[in-house]
């Protein structure tokens, strides 16, 4: 679908002047000559559109009148000539698109000519932006982004710093590795100093972990008395209500029974009817004398298994064990335990484990947690949670049917925590932490040596300058004079090192005068690309020995880095940004509309994408599998959601699926469906645009600014396809939407949460069904290929593997080189594709081709 000639720009200038018609003809004539040698799809506006401007614009917008300050007479037809030219054309596009120009008092532009004009211009604007944003192959000095900073500090100190003070670098560019867009704010230096200082204090001054211990809890100890008390209160309410009723039931009498008036008495009886049956059911279940079933009540929330305040505990690794059993008749969703960490305001869900053992024979579930130093948080185990108010809404829906609310799903006999477990990792910073001041008065000398060693590591092999070391040592000496202890006095100068430019920036000055990176610089670029972290000793040693630049060694090291578990950081941050997965968290899905699309499934849906990509990467499977595949990568939880039987255990694995399954490939994944919806309805436009941008590498022009949203604000109950027919009615909308919308319609059988449906059901308040419409997925792909349904669409998209591979190459170049992909990178992208052709596009081969390229090895 992609025309590669788009990337060979020829900047042919042309301008037109109305002042002298003869002159204009002359100019146009010369323009026409050059146009003949330039492909049609250049960023030059085709000459035939001159007519429109001449007839409809120049009366008011020539250099003489220049109404509203707009003069189009000198406007160059070479759109990408300069930002100013592109901006003026963009204004023209917006004005005609919105119908603002020509004004209603003037003759309108012929529809067909206008449509062609708009199509040509909007397509060229996309290209113009790509050309104007081209960095000409230059890679700007890059600051470590927040992720890389955390990983780098962790590599040096052995613990992850708390980076909440630092700006989130994902907000300002497509990729958080884009050097030109990674700013340094006026307060940032102080934030770095503060962040480093607290990390250093934790690493150097905290006591070594104590002995491991086990603490076990019996949930019935907490919940039997609690629920019994709540039940007693409810019964008391009812007793007083019926007593009041028997006494006469008047407002005056209500006070004698502890109620303000009759109205309150009635309400309290209602509360009894809602609150008592679940408690009563729970208390009368014999298993709840020796354990606790996981209940949720409107008033008291979840039955939570709270683990003790870990603040008093040492940082390190812990194992949580839960002795539990499942109620096999309950829906499978409720048969998972949810493990979460909370700091009082924010709850982070850490994972889920399925319980399969029956009540008569409980099993022990294990879950490991890493408690970071300095973290003030507690842990808890509970039922699987839904988003926003979902749990409470579902509870009341269940109660309407069964009086006792949401099924319990799981019963817990006991739970325990053990830790901190001995970790075999040696502390990276022990050499410094275990140092002590020499008695012979040479402590400044030793401090200087330690600071130099630390700086050498923090500077990734770069030698710190002597004057700098003198000043750092002076800082240390000052603190000693102030009476600080040995290590305390070192902390500030160490924090300064972790806030200095050589640490914070990936400085690349090239080998001698050449543009080629030095071996050390290459090692850094490689490690930050594949690990988002500094090079390890092996890589540094090779670089120092001058062996890394050797293509064979470089290839071996690339493979080694990819097979290391740290490459998981590359997989996650690259895929998250490439496929724009932040969209997945943007909307909450209501529990009532999507009862099974809960927090756990949303997390798993994202995980599926990372795991699939990682599997293709590590097992060298064809890239094609991302478009269409005979397998899906799932764990038990996601398999349950997809309705795939026989998947046990929480690890991710390949599961074969038939050709009639929508799963297998990105198009049919829950994540992609959910990313293209607003938590209520699917959006064929969002989905279509995503497919065009990410799968087909054929990005449509951006929507003209300030287009009103087509939404149900009009109050009409229509199927989504009808709702969007307005796109086809208006010529200027149709030019893009005739390509976008059919792809979205083809995906309509997947509901907003990615589950298969035959009907589109529109609900209003209180789940009232407002409309039901059969789904019509058929459409046209491009100009000629018709497809019948989702599977036909998927087939068509899968044919476009070359475009997809090109798009991924672009993304890898942007992410890996730290700069926006520009048209100068076209050849590199082609090299990567041909480099991977032999392996049927194994992802690792794209990575190899990029790393072996001249571009990657130059500054």
């Amino acid at each position, binding site marked *: 679908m992609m025309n590669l000639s788009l990337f060979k720009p020829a900047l042919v200038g042309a301008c037109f002047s109305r002042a002298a018609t003869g002159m204009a003809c002359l100019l146009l004539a010369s323009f026409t000559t050059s146009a003949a040698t330039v492909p049609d799809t250049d960023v030059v506006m085709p000459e035939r559109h001159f007519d429109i401007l001449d007839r409809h614009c120049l009366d008011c917008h020539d250099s003489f009148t220049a109404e509203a300050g707009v003069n189009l007479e000198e406007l160059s037809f070479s759109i990408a000539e300069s930002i100013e030219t592109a901006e003026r054309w963009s204004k023209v596009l917006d004005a005609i698109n919105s119908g603002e120009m020509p004004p209603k008092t003037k003759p309108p532009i012929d529809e067909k000519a206008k449509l062609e004009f708009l199509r040509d211009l909007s397509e060229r604007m996309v290209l113009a932006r790509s050309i104007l944003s081209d960095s000409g192959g230059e890679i700007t000095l890059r600051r470590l982004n927040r992720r890389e900073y955390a990983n780098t500090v962790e590599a040096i100190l052995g613990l992850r710093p708390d980076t909440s003070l630092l700006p989130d670098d994902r907000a300002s560019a497509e990729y958080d590795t884009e050097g030109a867009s990674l700013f340094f704010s006026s307060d940032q230096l102080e934030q770095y100093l503060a962040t480093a200082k607290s990390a250093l204090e934790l690493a150097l001054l905290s006591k070594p972990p104590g002995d491991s211990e086990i603490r076990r809890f019996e949930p019935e100890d907490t919940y039997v008395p609690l629920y019994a008390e709540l039940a007693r209160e409810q019964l008391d309410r009812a007793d007083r209500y019926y007593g009041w009723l028997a006494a006469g039931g008047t407002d005056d009498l209500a006070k004698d029974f502890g109620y303000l008036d009759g109205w309150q008495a009635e309400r309290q009886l209602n509360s009894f009817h809602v609150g008592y049956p679940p408690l009563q059911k729970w208390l009368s279940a014999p298993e709840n004398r020796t354990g606790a079933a996981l209940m949720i009540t409107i008033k008291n929330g979840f039955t939570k298994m709270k683990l003790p305040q870990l603040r008093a505990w040492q940082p390190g690794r812990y194992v949580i064990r839960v002795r539990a059993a499942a109620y096999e008749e309950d829906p499978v969703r409720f048969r998972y335990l949810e493990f979460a960490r909370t700091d009082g*305001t924010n709850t982070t869900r850490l994972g889920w484990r399925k319980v399969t053992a029956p009540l008569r024979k409980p099993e022990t579930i294990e879950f490991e947690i890493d408690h970071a130093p300095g973290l003030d948080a507690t842990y808890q185990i509970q039922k699987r949670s839904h988003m926003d108010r979902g749990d409470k809404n579902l509870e009341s829906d269940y109660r309407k049917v069964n009086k006792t609310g949401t099924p319990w799903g799981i019963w817990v006999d006991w739970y325990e925590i053990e830790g901190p477990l001995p970790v075999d990792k040696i502390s990276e910073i022990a050499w410094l932490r275990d140092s002590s001041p020499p008695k012979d008065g040479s402590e400044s000398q030793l401090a200087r040596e330690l600071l130099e060693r630390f700086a050498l590591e923090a500077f990734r092999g770069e030698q710190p300058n002597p004057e700098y070391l003198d000043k750092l040592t002076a800082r240390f000496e000052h603190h000693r004079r102030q009476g600080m202890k040995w290590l305390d006095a070192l902390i500030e100068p160490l924090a300064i090192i972790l806030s200095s430019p050589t640490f914070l920036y990936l400085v690349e000055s090239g080998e001698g005068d050449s543009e080629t990176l030095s071996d050390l610089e290459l090692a850094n670029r490689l490690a930050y690309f594949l690990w988002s972290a500094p090079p390890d000793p092996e890589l540094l040693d090779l670089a120092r020995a001058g062996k890394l630049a050797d293509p064979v060694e470089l290839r071996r090291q690339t493979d080694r880095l990819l097979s290391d578990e740290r490459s998981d950081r590359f997989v996650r941050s690259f895929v998250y940004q490439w496929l724009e997965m932040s969209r997945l968290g943007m909307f909450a899905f209501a529990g009532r509309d999507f009862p099974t699309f809960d927090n756990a499934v949303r997390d798993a849906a994202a995980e599926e994408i990372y795991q699939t990509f990682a599997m293709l990467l590590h097992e060298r499977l064809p890239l094609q599998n991302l478009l269409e595949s005979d397998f899906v990568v799932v764990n038990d939880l996601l398999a349950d959601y997809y309705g795939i039987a026989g998947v046990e255990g929480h690890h991710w694995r390949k599961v074969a699926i038939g050709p009639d399954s929508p799963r297998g490939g990105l198009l049919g994944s829950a994540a992609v469906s959910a990313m293209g919806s607003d938590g209520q309805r699917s959006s064929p436009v969002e989905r279509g645009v995503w497919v065009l941008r990410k799968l087909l590498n054929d990005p449509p022009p951006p929507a003209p600014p300030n287009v009103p949203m087509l939404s149900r604000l009009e109050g009409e109950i229509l199927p989504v396809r009808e709702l969007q027919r307005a796109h086809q009615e208006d010529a200027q909308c149709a030019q893009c939407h005739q390509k976008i919308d059919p792809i979205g319609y083809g995906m309509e059988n997947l509901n907003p949460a990615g589950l298969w449906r035959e009907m589109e059901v529109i609900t209003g308040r209180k789940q009232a069904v407002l409309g039901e419409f059969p789904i019509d997925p058929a459409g046209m792909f491009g100009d000629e290929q018709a497809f019948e349904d989702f599977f036909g669409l998927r087939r068509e998209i899968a044919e476009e593997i070359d475009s997809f591979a090109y798009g991924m190459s672009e993304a890898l170049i942007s992410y890996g080189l730290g700069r926006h992909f520009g048209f100068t990178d076209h050849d590199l992208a082609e090299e990567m594709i041909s480099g991977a052709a032999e392996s049927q596009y194994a992802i690792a081969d794209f990575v190899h081709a990029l790393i072996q390229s001249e571009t990657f090895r130059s500054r």
Partner: protein
Amino acid sequence: MKPKLTRRAILRSSSATIALPFLESFGFRRFAGAAAAAVPPKRMIWLGMGFGVTADKWFPKLEETGADYTFPSILKPLERHRRDITFIQHLMHRHSQDGHSGSTFWLTGANRYAMPGQSFHNTISVDQLAAETLGQDTRFTSIQLGARGNSNSGGDGHGPGLSLAWSRQGKPVSGLNTPVEAFHRLFSDESTPLAERQARLAQQRSVLDTVMTDASSVRRKLSQSDSEKLDEYFQSVREIEVRLSKEEQWLGVEKKQPNPPVTEPSESLLGYEEMGVMVDLMIAAMQVDASRVFTYRMPVDTMIASLGAGISAHTMSHYSHGERRDVSEMRDLHNAKFLARFIDRLKESTEADGSSLYDHTSLTMGTNLFSVHTLKNCPTLITGGGAGFEHGRHLVMPNEKTPLCNLWLSQLRGSGIAAETFGDSTGVIEELVEA
């Protein structure tokens, strides 16, 4: 001469002098505060709402302009101040393209893509420009307030940034994100002796000097363009130096306490209640003249949560019928209530000459987002007598694309700041001073 004409003349003139309070000579015993000022100083406040509003209910009807417009019912609590506020419609930033950023470019009007090869660019915000003049003689050049969590991506619709403010280099300026933090910055005096604090400043300078040694050796290795990138680092160091110098000037001066004194706010304040406390802190800070320029990046997510909403702010911002709209309207109502109380407090706080803080303050509440992802007709409410505007009206600009920067320029000039232009301004909004 009629006062109206004078105001207009000031607004039009870019070289108008500013009526600054009397300036004590350096080295002489300094007094913090308006007490020493012959004329109460001008103050400027911007309140950023993040996500857009419930558009069909928030704005007065387009056809009802002037003083006799029907007050929007969801802004009911503000109606008691209707003579003192102005709605302006049809203001926008022509460069704004990002439908999730209500604040990033709100006070700057910058073109995010103005720099080739760079996906993010910004310019100085109007408050920082104002602070260069108005902030010279106060302990704090400007105060940026924000809320916990509103910088989370997507969170409150504010977009990239650390507060509403952007520095002269177009870099984000950080803010005070809790009432407790703001309280301590504004009113807590350190118990450490003066000599110790002086010594500490010297130490901070020595830290800066050390990092600069490394920065200079890095710079020697860099190409021209990389070196420009590193300038951001140098700039950061310079800005800290400027701040340290100012701190040094004020070292011997105790922080002035408002009367009645403010007490330390609770740590747990969140949402709507927190917004009220931020108002009290701003008022108190103005009473003691701690600063004359304030911005507040208001909470949205925690605000609607504190009012009992069960959905997130971003979910709300897609106003489909039902709960999402209900929450959005509730948010609009409470923002109106918040502003109404702010105006009450400005009016009841008196200056030395008997006038009120309200008379000398120019306050704007608004956002770059109209509704959902639309960026035209930015919701804009202005109040206060500081810029000499005639309030009590609903203004609809004849040109639907009137630059929002024209308002910022009008406020700057009206507050006595000699600005030629601001952002993409094309002039001032003369209607603001015409009765």
